[in-house]
C-alpha cells in the first residue's frame, strides 16, 4: 500500500484536508449527541402505560356545578355507573381519581417505616373503585385486585387528617422494585403514609406490571399506588373500555349519558388515553423530530464538503494523474489513491470528533443537565461518518481514475 506518498502529499497541502477533517469532527460531535437525545426522547414517549389496547380506553370527567352532600354524591356515582354500563359498546367502566399521562391528579409521599425521616418515594396516588384495574386491563404479577370490602368510605368535608389512609393497596412492579430492591415478592409488605407521629400502614395486596402516573415523568413515571376509596369528591372520572374500534362513538354516548343522569347542570369532558399520550409526549416528539432534521442536514452538508474537496483536489492534480496513468498506474490504483487519502482524512476527523463529542456532551451536561453520552452513540456516529466518507469520495475518485494518460503530454 502506498501510504507514504499519500501522507506526504497531504502534509504538503494541508488546508483543504484539514477543513474536511474539521467538518467530519464537528458532524460526529453533533451527530452522536443528537442521536442520543433523540433515542432518549423516543424511548420516553413510547413507554407502555400499563393500559392494554390503549386505543379502546378513554374516560369521561364530570363535575356538578353545585356542591352535593356526601350521600348524594355517592348515590349519583351509582346512577352514573348504571348509565354508563347501559351505553352500547361499553365493555367495562371504573371510577378513578386520575388517569395515566393525563397530567392531572395527585401524588403523595410514602415511607417504608414510620420512623424514617425522608420519604422513600412520591408515587402517583390513584384513588379507585373496583372495576378500574379490569377496565384498563392492568396485569397482576402478584396478589389480587382491590375489591368492595377494601373500600374506604371518605368524605372530604368531615375527614380529619388521619382518615385518608386505606388499609390495603396495589402498587406497580417498577415502584415495588425501587422500594424493595432485594425482594422477589412484595405482597404483605407495608407502606407508611401520614404525618409525623401519626403514620399509618397500608398493606400491599397486589402488584401490577405497570401503570404510568398522571405526570409520566421520565424517571418516576411508572411509580403508582392504587388505593381503594369510595370518596365523595367534587368530581367523578370514569374510565371506559369500549368494544374494539368504537371508542370515539362510545365516549360521545357516555358523556351524553352522564349529562342525562345528572340532576343539575354539570361540567363534563371526555378524552381517550391515546389523546393524553399524544399531548403528554408532544414536546419529546417535537424535539426528536427537530434533531433528526438537523442530523440529516448535517450529513448532507458534510457529504457536500467531502465531495467538493475531493473534486478540487482531483482538478488540481489532473496532470499528475495523467502522468501516473501514463507510467502504468491502473484505474483502480488511482481510485485507491483517493479512497485511501480520504480514509486518512475522515479517520483523522473521526478521532478529533470523538474527543469533540465528549467535550460537547460535558458542556451540555453542565448547562442543560443532559446525561452522559454512552460510548455506543459515538461508535454509531463514527460508523455513519466512515460510510458517508467512502460513499462521498467514490464518485469524484472514479472520475479521476478515468482521466486519460494523454493529459500528461499536454501543457497546463
Amino acid at each position, binding site marked *: 500500500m502506498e501510504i507514504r506518498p499519500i501522507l506526504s502529499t497531504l502534509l504538503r497541502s494541508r*488546508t483543504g484536508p484539514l477543513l474536511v477533517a474539521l467538518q467530519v469532527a464537528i458532524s460526529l460531535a453533533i451527530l452522536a449527541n443528537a442521536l442520543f437525545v433523540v433515542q432518549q426522547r423516543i424511548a420516553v414517549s413510547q413507554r407502555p402505560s400499563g393500559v392494554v389496547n390503549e386505543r379502546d380506553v378513554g374516560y369521561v370527567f364530570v363535575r356538578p356545578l353545585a356542591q352535593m352532600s356526601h350521600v348524594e354524591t355517592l348515590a349519583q356515582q351509582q346512577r352514573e355507573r348504571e348509565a354508563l354500563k347501559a351505553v352500547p359498546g361499553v365493555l367495562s367502566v371504573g371510577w378513578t381519581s386520575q388517569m395515566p399521562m393525563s397530567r392531572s391528579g395527585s401524588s403523595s409521599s410514602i415511607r417504608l417505616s414510620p420512623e424514617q425521616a425522608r420519604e422513600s418515594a412520591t408515587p402517583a396516588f390513584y384513588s379507585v373503585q373496583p372495576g378500574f384495574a379490569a377496565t384498563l386491563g392492568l396485569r397482576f404479577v402478584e396478589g389480587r385486585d382491590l375489591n368492595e370490602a377494601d373500600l374506604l368510605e371518605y368524605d372530604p368535608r368531615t375527614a380529619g387528617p388521619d382518615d385518608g389512609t386505606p388499609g390495603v393497596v396495589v402498587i406497580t412492579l417498577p415502584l415495588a422494585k425501587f422500594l424493595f430492591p432485594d425482594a422477589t415478592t412484595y405482597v404483605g409488605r407495608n407502606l407508611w403514609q401520614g404525618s409525623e407521629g401519626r403514620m399509618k400502614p397500608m398493606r400491599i395486596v397486589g402488584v401490577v406490571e405497570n401503570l404510568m402516573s398522571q405526570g409520566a415523568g421520565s424517571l418516576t413515571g411508572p411509580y403508582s399506588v392504587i388505593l381503594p376509596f369510595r370518596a365523595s369528591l367534587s368530581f367523578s372520572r370514569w374510565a371506559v373500555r369500549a368494544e374494539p374500534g368504537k371508542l370515539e362513538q362510545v365516549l360521545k354516548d357516555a358523556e351524553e349519558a352522564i349529562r342525562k343522569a345528572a340532576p343539575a347542570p354539570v*361540567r363534563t369532558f371526555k378524552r381517550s388515553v391515546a389523546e393524553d399520550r399524544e399531548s403528554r409526549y408532544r414536546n419529546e416528539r417535537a424535539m426528536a423530530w427537530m434533531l433528526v432534521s438537523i442530523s440529516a442536514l448535517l450529513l448532507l452538508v458534510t457529504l457536500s464538503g467531502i465531495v467538493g474537496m475531493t473534486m478540487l483536489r482531483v482538478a488540481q492534480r489532473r496532470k499528475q494523474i495523467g502522468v501516473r496513468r501514463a507510467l502504468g498506474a491502473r484505474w483502480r490504483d488511482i481510485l485507491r489513491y483517493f479512497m485511501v487519502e480520504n480514509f486518512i482524512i475522515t479517520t483523522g476527523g473521526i478521532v478529533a470528533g470523538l474527543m469533540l463529542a465528549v467535550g460537547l456532551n460535558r458542556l451540555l451536561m453542565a448547562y442543560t443537565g443532559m446525561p452522559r453520552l454512552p460510548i455506543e452513540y459515538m461508535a454509531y456516529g463514527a460508523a455513519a461518518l466512515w460510510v458517508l466518507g467512502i460513499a462521498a469520495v467514490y464518485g469524484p475518485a472514479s472520475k479521476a481514475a478515468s482521466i486519460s494518460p494523454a493529459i500528461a503530454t499536454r501543457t497546463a
Partner: protein
Amino acid sequence: MFRYYLLLGARSLRRNPALTALMVLTLAIGVAASVATLTILHVMSGNPIPHKSDRLLVPLLDVAPKRNYVPGLREPYSQQSTYPDTVNYLRSGPGVRRTAIYDIGGAVEPAKRDDPVIQLGGVATTSDYFAMFEVPFRYGSAWTPAHDERAARVAVLSPSKSEAIFGDVDPVGKTFRSWGETFTVVGVVGDWKPTPRYTNLTNGSGGYFNGEDQVFIPFKTAVSLELRSNGNTTCSRDSGVGYKGFLESDCVWIQAWFELASPADRPAAQAWLDHYAAEQRRGGRLERNAPNRLFNVTEWLEYMEVVRADNKIAVWLAFGFLALCIVNTMGLLLAKFSTRAAEVGVRRALGAGQGAIFRQFLTETAVVGIAGGVIGLLLAMVSLWLIRKQSQDLSVVAQMDWPMLAATFAIAVGAALVAGLLPTWRACQVSPALQLKSQ
C-alpha cells in the same frame, strides 16, 4: 471603491452559479437552524414586564417539617405560600402594592338546564393585581379595595369569555351565575397576554406559555366560597378538618407578590421578610430555618425553570451545526478563490495593495453572507411555522420578532465573514510575479 468591489463580487458569484448557490444554501441552512432554535429560547426566556421586573417580588418561605430537610435540595413545596402567610403579607407586607393569586376553575351556570355549560378558568386575586401587572381594560375597570374587603361577588372577564357569555357588547354591570352565586361584571381586560404567564405559572389552564386567565374574582370572595386551587396544592404535613382546616394548614397553594417603589427597597423588603419569619419561628413554625427568599420576575422565571433543558440543548446543537456550515463554506470559498490566483496576480501587478485585495474578497464574501441571511431568514420562518404546528406551547413561543430579525442578519453576515477570512487571507498571499510568469 466599495461599490466597485460589490460589482466585482456579484460578477464573480454569477460566473460560477452552482458553487455560489451551494455556499449560499449551506450558510442559509445553518443560519435557519440556529435562528429557529434561538428564537424559541429568546421568547421563552423573554422578560414579560421589563420596565418593572426588578420591582415585582415573590416571597417564599420554607414551611416544611424539619426532619425532611436537606439544605439546598429543591422541593416541590417551595414554590407557593400558605394561606396564613398570604393574609399577613396582604395586611402588612412591604412595598407600595401587594397581591395574592391562586388558580380557580368553575363554570357559568346555564339559564336553562340543557343549555351548554361555559367553562371558566382564572384566578382569585386582589384589586392591586391589575395595577401591579399593568393589565389594560377594554371595558370598565378593576374592582376596588372595598370590594376586596367585603368579599363582593364581582368579576373581571377576559375578552374571549365576555364574548362567550354576553356576546359582543359591553358587559359591565351585567351578571352571571357561577360557584352557586351571582357575580356582577365590573370590567373586561384588553389585549393582555404576558409571555411567559409569569403572574400565574402554576396554573391548571395551559402551563407556562399557553392558555389565559379568563376570569378574575376577589381573593376573599373565592375563599368565602371555599374554592380550592385548580393549579397546584402541596402539603408537607396533614391539614385539619374541612376547608377551615385546609386554610389553617401549612399547605402551599397561593402565589404572593410585592411591588416596591424602587428596586433599591429590596433590602428593606428582605429585612421585613426575615423579621416576619423570625416572628413566625417564635410561634413554633418554620422549624427548618431555611433562607427566606425573594425573587424578582426574571429570577422567578429562572427558579421555576420556565425554559426547558431541551430548548437549550437544541440551541447548542444548532449552533454546532452552524459551525459545520461555516467550515463547509470556508472550504468552498477556498476552492473558489484558489482558481482566481491569476486575477489577483494581474490586479496586484497593476498596483492594487494587499489591503485592496483583502477588501475586495471580503466584500464578495459579505454578498454571500447577505444572500445566505435572506434565504436563511425565509427558511427559519418556514421552520418556525412547522414548529408552531407541533404543540400549543410551541405555537406561542415560536414567533419571530424584530430583535431576532436583526440577530438573523448579524449571524448570517458574521458567519460568512468568519468563513471568508482564511480564504481571503490566502488570496492576498498570491505573489504577482509567479502568477504572471505562468500565464
